[in-house]
């Protein structure tokens, strides 16, 4: 795998022009030093380091006293971690489903040769330009029970109306979800729209001839055809979900109680605040495992049959 390019020179379109003399290609190798260093030291080295030290009892400073799976046993016996994982699951499933549904619906609507398409797209996508910190703070304000949505509805006459997600532990995760969807669905829409626009015009002609309704065409014909785009969107959303951190920090700091805790916050707290590095490493290793669970099937689906490149 490592030398795929060398052993199969004939399949490589640049093979014919590859310089013969080693010192010429030397330049390319020298130029790649930062990349190679990043790959070896950071992506491989640092990840392995963290996994390795998750089997120690490192507290404030890393130390090589190995304790087997002790950190993992404690991790999975800790309420806060279990709550975090539960939240991640709920948040993950909901934000995946809603992102895809909303993203696709908006894309389909924009695809209807509408007027002001650019204006609508600009509005749907601008939140993506904003950071999670900004997103979290804005929604913290809009959902503020004293001045925000709850008060507005009450002022309109519905005095018993109650919608206070950020201070109600059973629904706080939806408060974060609303903010996350606001920020991220524009991107999904863009990806989907690109996918839809990439479909051959003849498909539409055929479906019109067959008398299939527009909506049915989208659902039955278009969706299967843009599968690669959907898969890409799923991977992007999933990777984002596992990493969710800034948004929660700005919006709720994990509260009320532990109700909106996320794995990334647990990692940060154990690693830096509670001076228990190994516990943080164990938790981050679990995050890595989660990502692998998402990525491996995808990589298999995408690259399983055919060669890379």
């Amino acid at each position, binding site marked *: 795998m490592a030398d795929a390019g060398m052993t199969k020179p004939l399949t490589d379109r640049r093979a014919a022009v590859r310089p013969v003399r080693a010192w010429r290609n030397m330049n390319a190798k020298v130029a790649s030093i930062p990349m190679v260093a990043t790959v070896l030291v950071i992506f491989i080295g640092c990840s392995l380091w963290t996994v390795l030290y998750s089997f120690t009892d490192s507290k404030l400073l890393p130390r090589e006293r190995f304790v087997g799976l002790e950190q993992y046993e404690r991790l999975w016996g800790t309420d806060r971690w279990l709550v975090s994982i539960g939240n991640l699951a709920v948040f993950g499933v909901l934000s995946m489903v809603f992102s895809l549904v909303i993203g696709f619906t908006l894309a389909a609507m924009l695809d209807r040769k509408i007027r002001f398409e650019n204006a609508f797209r600009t509005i749907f996508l601008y939140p993506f330009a904003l950071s999670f910190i900004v997103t979290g703070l804005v929604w913290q304000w809009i959902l503020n029970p004293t001045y925000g949505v709850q008060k507005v509805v009450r002022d309109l006459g519905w005095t018993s109306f109650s919608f206070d997600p950020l201070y109600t532990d059973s629904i706080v995760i939806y408060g974060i979800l609303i903010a996350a969807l606001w920020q991220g669905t524009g991107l999904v829409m863009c990806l989907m729209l690109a996918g839809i626009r990439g479909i051959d015009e003849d498909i539409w002609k055929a479906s019109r001839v067959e008398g299939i309704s527009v909506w049915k065409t989208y659902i039955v014909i278009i969706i299967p055809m843009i599968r690669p785009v959907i898969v890409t969107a799923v991977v992007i959303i999933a990777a984002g979900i596992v990493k969710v951190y800034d948004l929660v920090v700005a919006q709720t700091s994990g509260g009320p109680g532990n109700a909106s805790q996320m794995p*990334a916050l647990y990692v940060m707290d154990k690693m830096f605040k509670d001076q228990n590095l190994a516990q943080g490493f164990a938790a981050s290793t679990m995050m890595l495992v989660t990502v692998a669970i998402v990525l491996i099937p995808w990589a298999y689906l995408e690259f399983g049959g055919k060669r890379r490149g």
Partner: protein
Amino acid sequence: MAEMIAGPRGPKPRRAFSTPNIVLYGTLIVVAAYYALPLYVMIVTSLKTMPEIRLGNVFSPPVEITFEPWVKAWSSACTGINCDGLSRGFWNSVWILIPSVILSIAISSVNGYALANWKYRGSEFFFAVLMIGAFIPYQVMLYPIVLVLKNIGDFLSIFSLAMGMGKVQVYGTLSGLVIVHTIFGMPILTLLFRNYFSALPEELFKAARVDGAGFWGIFFKIMLPMALPIFVVAMILQVTGIWNDFLFGVIYTKPEIYPMTVQLNNIVNSVQGVKEYNVNMAATLLTGLVPLTIYFISGKLFVRGIAAGAVKG
């Protein structure tokens, strides 16, 4: 992925006022209102006085417009006893941004060029790992990177001390953060440039080789001038990404060089007495202004950038 948004296609438009059209436009307008609402709320809140905020609700427009909160957010909001507002964070972000964007794009464009045109033993392997690296949760690498930066500093200190200069500090300084941004921007940027250079006509490259041009010669004389659009896309991607970063800013810097996002969170989430929501919202808007401006100016290029950058997750 290069031609993200082609022109509108699909079936021909129906008559303007058919029922489906009304439903379609109605839905779009309602949804657009929902998306636009937070920006509206930020703007009106930042222009109100505190008494007005307490009396009214978040959606009501300001009765009496005041720019006081903006002034305060920019120049006198406090974190601790430092009361110089967000301006410090703004300039910090600028100083973080410029070298980070330049360095990351410089390195990644060369990477992409080497990967596309000068494959060598193992280059595909490194590229594959680089792509996988984009998906590793940052939390896994945060701590060891602290040690790596410290060691880089110690290593460079050997030379600088030998030359009679002071100790070199990398961790906790601007240079450390620039390195981190360069590292984490590398996967997506490299992908971007590699795909772009691969798609350029091969004849150009061959002709240059025949003329005897080398690695750098071809890069600077032929590839760079042709790659202008992709450089713009990469820049948009990096400027927004780095400006919006919070996690690295918290971990790899110290209070004097905190980027704007971190300072914003500090100002808003640490209160002295009463929370000043108008100042908080002005501060929030100020922080969002740079990426928003880029977004509104760059239009379709931004869409291309994020569509490509989306792979970064």
